[in-house]
């Protein structure tokens, strides 16, 4: 009886977490804001589900497999979020670095821009058509830097 109550509470919390995340993803205005709401569904809810299975089944094979799957999710979600925000930023700005970092990098290259062009251009990150992005972010060209980024593509 006690186990059933604890399981129900854990599952309710997991469902509420997922529902709140879904609501956040649906209502947030930009991709940057939406991405914040993936994390609770990918990190918090799996822990609650794994705990619910553990409380019900005890320490057995099913619990082990559930914990394995959900622990992998918990470990992988931050990496995926980081890669996603990086990709969105590259699409929006042409480079994942902020304008200040790009400027200092150009200064270190003694005004030639070769080092910066090599580092950024190797990723093939040039984007100029703002209509395609629609990520809700504005693009700021910093001192004609976009021209350097795409030269080596």
């Amino acid at each position, binding site marked *: 009886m006690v186990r059933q109550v604890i399981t129900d509470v854990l599952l309710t919390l997991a*469902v509420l977490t997922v529902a709140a995340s879904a609501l956040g*993803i*649906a209502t947030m205005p930009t991709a940057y804001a939406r991405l914040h709401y993936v994390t609770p569904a990918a990190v918090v809810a799996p822990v609650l589900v794994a705990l619910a299975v553990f409380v019900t089944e005890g320490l057995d094979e099913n619990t082990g497999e559930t914990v*394995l799957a959900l622990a992998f999710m918990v470990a992988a979600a931050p990496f*995926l979020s980081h890669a*996603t925000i990086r990709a*969105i930023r590259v699409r929006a700005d042409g480079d994942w670095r902020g304008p200040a970092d790009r400027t200092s990098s150009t200064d270190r290259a003694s005004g030639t821009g070769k080092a910066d062009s090599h580092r950024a251009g190797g*990723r093939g990150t040039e984007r100029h058509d703002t209509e395609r992005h629609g990520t809700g972010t504005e693009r700021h060209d910093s001192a004609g830097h976009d021209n350097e980024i795409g030269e080596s593509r």
Partner: protein
Amino acid sequence: MTSFVVAAIAMLVALVPAGVVIVRGTLADAVIGFEFLTSVAVMVFALLAEGFKRPSLFEFPVLLAVLLFGSGLVFVRALERWL
């Protein structure tokens, strides 16, 4: 119907807003919706396996978690470079 099955159904309902974002949003929004969907899908399969007491089905969420992480990275890379 156990509480695990009920929770799985509730999580499936929670996927509807993400589906709307995938269909109607921009490309970046769609990738984020896909990531949310994959996270919830792994949990749903684990919940259903427990709810229906099918131990063999517990292997499915394990495989899905690994494969969907890789596919998410592929989508993100494509979003960054080619799309």
